[in-house]
């Protein structure tokens, strides 16, 4: 079979002052009709650059240095712009990562899709409308008639991504390039979209270049896989080959870092006699977004009758889809939010109604690690101050607090020299360590980690998870681990709580919940995990251990 697309010795130069000279270096591979080729690699490895080069959408400052991209016998790089335009959106189309921003907010769905026909065909208005409707039906939008008339902001993320797909497939292109199309979506939505892409690809025989950093997704849909690192292609091969017998050490490392889906056996301590470090009873929180003049107020029950106990030395997972209320619960617990009703007992004392002053002593006992390693550190403060400011605010002398900060840095495995540096001088993983050190500065008993690893690359995730685990044991912490990635939950949590629409639908020991989910929602959730089959039966590799 002849490839539909051939990338030959492609090098893309980065502007001066970038972290490396080439975004993509001497890249060669082919894409065959009807196959799904996954391009994986960590952030910044040049995945998007390749895709953009194919589409001719490279930023002005970035130039193709050498090489060719052959499509239909023509080199896309040297092709004159007008001819290339005829191919774009017609023979080759693309969908992007952020469904929220990839659609023009000022145009109706119908017009945005219709535009493709307008540019590349001479269908009449009626025909365009009919085709658009058909497409929307194809991608499984509920009530496509109505969907035609709405604006993007009136659709959910998954729905928008469906619109994008409809747009991309409008003219039955030979190639579809999908740049991380599911990264911003929920597991269940992700599963649906992946399914949709696969189905449409089969139906139309489209060749798909699928960019992702998630090996689960690769396992789910790939025919062949390209692995990239720092602009180099380090490995290429069939899915089975790459996933199960990786050759290159980098690939091995990446794959090893993916936690298996099955929960390891854990010793279940009997807590009967112990008193919980944190006890939540019937917590309720409702958001009321104020209505305007004659606009009905919108109420969201983000937490309804949430109860659980958390003991020292255990990790309790809080899982559920986006919007299920996980963050709400964790923020109520640390009193960043005021709950409506229920009790929060910290070491036996009720803290839910304490005011700013009375709360101060309890602040030391419960601390939080945040999600975004970039947003959670004040860019204008040195790492030392970031860690020490909490104790200083509580009355600890500055010198003492700084000494303690130094110790903490050692604890989270950062060099002491970090003390006087600013957050932007650190990588994401290192920053998250600083965040943890800050949380530990007060010697808390309870640590709440809200999606503390979601923003990190897989390999870094593993390190942070390990750190938290070590610290937990060393300091006998009670950890509330909020996470949406079930693979992670399965690995690190002793017990899990599953939330849906603000309610707890299932709770229990991790292994029990994963192996025998009781609630249909939990079952559904687990089934949606991409690549669920891959590595689930595998012997669990210890977290973070290099393969």
């Amino acid at each position, binding site marked *: 079979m002849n490839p539909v697309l051939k990338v030959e010795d492609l090098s893309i130069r980065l502007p001066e002052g970038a972290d490396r000279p080439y975004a993509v270096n001497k890249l060669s591979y082919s894409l065959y009709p009807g196959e799904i080729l996954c391009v994986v690699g960590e952030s910044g490895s040049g995945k998007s650059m390749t895709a953009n080069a194919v589409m001719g959408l490279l930023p002005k400052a970035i130039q193709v240095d050498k090489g060719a991209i052959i499509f239909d016998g023509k080199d896309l790089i040297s092709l004159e712009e007008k001819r290339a335009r*005829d191919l774009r*959106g*017609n023979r080759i189309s*693309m969908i992007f990562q952020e469904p929220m921003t990839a659609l023009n907010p000022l145009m109706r769905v119908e017009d945005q899709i219709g535009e493709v026909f307008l540019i590349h065909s001479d269908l009449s208005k009626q025909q365009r409308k009919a085709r658009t409707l058909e497409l929307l039906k194809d991608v499984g939008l509920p009530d496509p008639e109505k969907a035609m008339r709405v604006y993007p902001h009136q659709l959910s993320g998954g729905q928008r991504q469906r619109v994008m797909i409809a747009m991309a497939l409008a003219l039955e292109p030979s190639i579809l390039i999908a740049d991380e199309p599911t990264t911003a979506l929920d597991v269940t939505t992700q599963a649906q979209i992946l399914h949709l892409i696969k189905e449409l690809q089969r139906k139309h025989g489209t060749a798909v270049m699928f960019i992702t950093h998630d090996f689960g997704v690769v396992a789910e849909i790939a025919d062949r896989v390209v692995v990239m690192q720092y602009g180099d292609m380090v490995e290429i091969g069939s899915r089975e080959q790459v996933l199960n017998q990786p050759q290159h050490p980098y690939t091995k490392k990446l794959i090893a870092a993916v936690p298996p889906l099955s929960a390891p056996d854990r010793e279940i301590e009997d807590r009967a006699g112990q008193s919980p470090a944190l006890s939540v009873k019937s917590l309720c929180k409702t958001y009321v977004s104020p209505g305007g003049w004659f606009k009905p107020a919108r109420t969201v029950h983000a937490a309804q009758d949430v109860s659980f106990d958390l003991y020292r030395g255990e990790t309790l997972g809080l899982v559920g889809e986006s919007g299920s209320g996980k963050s709400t619960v964790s923020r109520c617990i640390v009193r960043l939010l005021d709950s409506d009703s229920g009790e929060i007992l910290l070491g036996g004392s009720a803290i839910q109604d304490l005011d700013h002053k009375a709360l101060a002593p309890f602040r030391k006992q419960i601390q939080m690690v945040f999600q975004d390693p970039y947003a959670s550190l004040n860019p204008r403060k040195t790492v030392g101050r970031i860690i020490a400011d909490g104790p200083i605010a509580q009355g600890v002398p500055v010198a003492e607090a700084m000494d303690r900060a130094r110790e903490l840095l050692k604890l989270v495995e950062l060099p002491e020299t970090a003390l006087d540096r600013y957050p932007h001088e650190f990588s994401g993983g290192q920053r998250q360590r600083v965040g943890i050190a800050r949380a530990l500065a007060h010697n808390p008993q309870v640590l709440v980690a809200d999606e503390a690893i979601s923003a990190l690359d897989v390999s870094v995730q593993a390190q942070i998870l390990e750190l938290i685990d070590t610290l937990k044991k060393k300091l006998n912490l009670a950890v509330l681990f909020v996470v949406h990635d079930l693979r992670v939950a399965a690995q690190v949590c002793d017990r899990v709580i599953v939330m849906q629409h603000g309610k707890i639908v299932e709770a229990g020991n991790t292994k029990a919940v994963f192996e025998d989910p009781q609630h249909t929602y939990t079952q559904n959730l687990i089934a949606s995990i991409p690549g669920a089959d891959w590595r689930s039966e595998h012997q669990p590799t210890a977290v973070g251990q290099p393969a």
Partner: protein
Amino acid sequence: MSIQTLFYIGGRLIKGLLVLFVIAIFNFFLIRAAPGDPAKVMAGEAGAADEVFLQQLREQFGLDQPLYYQLWVYISNLVQFDMGQTYRQQMPVFDLIMDRLPATLLLTGTAFVLSLGLGVLVGVIAASNHRKWIDSAISVAALVFYATPLFWLALMAVLLFSVFLGWLPAFGMETVGANYTGWDRVVDIAEHLVLPAMTLGLFFTAVYARMTRTSMIETSRADFVKTAKAKGMSPGRVTFRHTLRNALLPVVTLAGLQAGQMIGGAVLTETVFAWPGIGRLMFEALFQRDYNLLLGVFFISSAMVVLFNLVTDIIYCLVDPRIELTK
């Protein structure tokens, strides 16, 4: 337009009226803080005056009453949309302002439309030639106009176009005494309008051009522009159908804010070009301590600002489906 929108507009109007009301009170006291009073000014112009004359005038104007009473009278009249009498011209303030308002609206309206149209056009040209010489040329020109004092431009324009070249009338709104009617009159007014509208508009053209340029450049980096390009659209089409519409949103907001403010900003232009508008009226009223008139002008121009802001909001809502006129 939905009922909700109507309610929204109603609500905004009520809020606006409240603001205006506070402004009226604030201005009332502000103006009374000035030394001198209208009677003195008028007596002063007479070149001779005694206490009797002053007292007569004050009585006539109601200035002999205690301040709180004057405020009460003013506010209770205002609530009935009566702004009182001017001291000098002895006519209802409202009538006088309405006499002058059309001139100002004509001037600022023309300047506004011109500057917005031209500014957006130039801004788009600059943005689509980002980092090329034409972009630099436009940016420099816009900056120079932005940095040059308005009155200076006005003076230079008069020198050049009226005195040396003799192409355009230097002042006034129409040829006095020519008694043109119909089309001739329109042409006559248009001729008079060119210089003041140009000087007033140039600054704002620069403002809009700069703003449009920045906004266009920023928007052209948005994901949906990439989507549009990925559809295989020509750059022109991408610019006009996708980038421009989104890039115009902040320009619309700014323009709305400035449309109202322009009325106050026209004082300079109206003075240099002897344009019989309310900017000049305000300036004169201030120095004549014509309290009622000054308050009236302030009230009306603030009302214009409120009105323009509301109109902007409505336009914004029409352009941007994400905004709902409900909060």
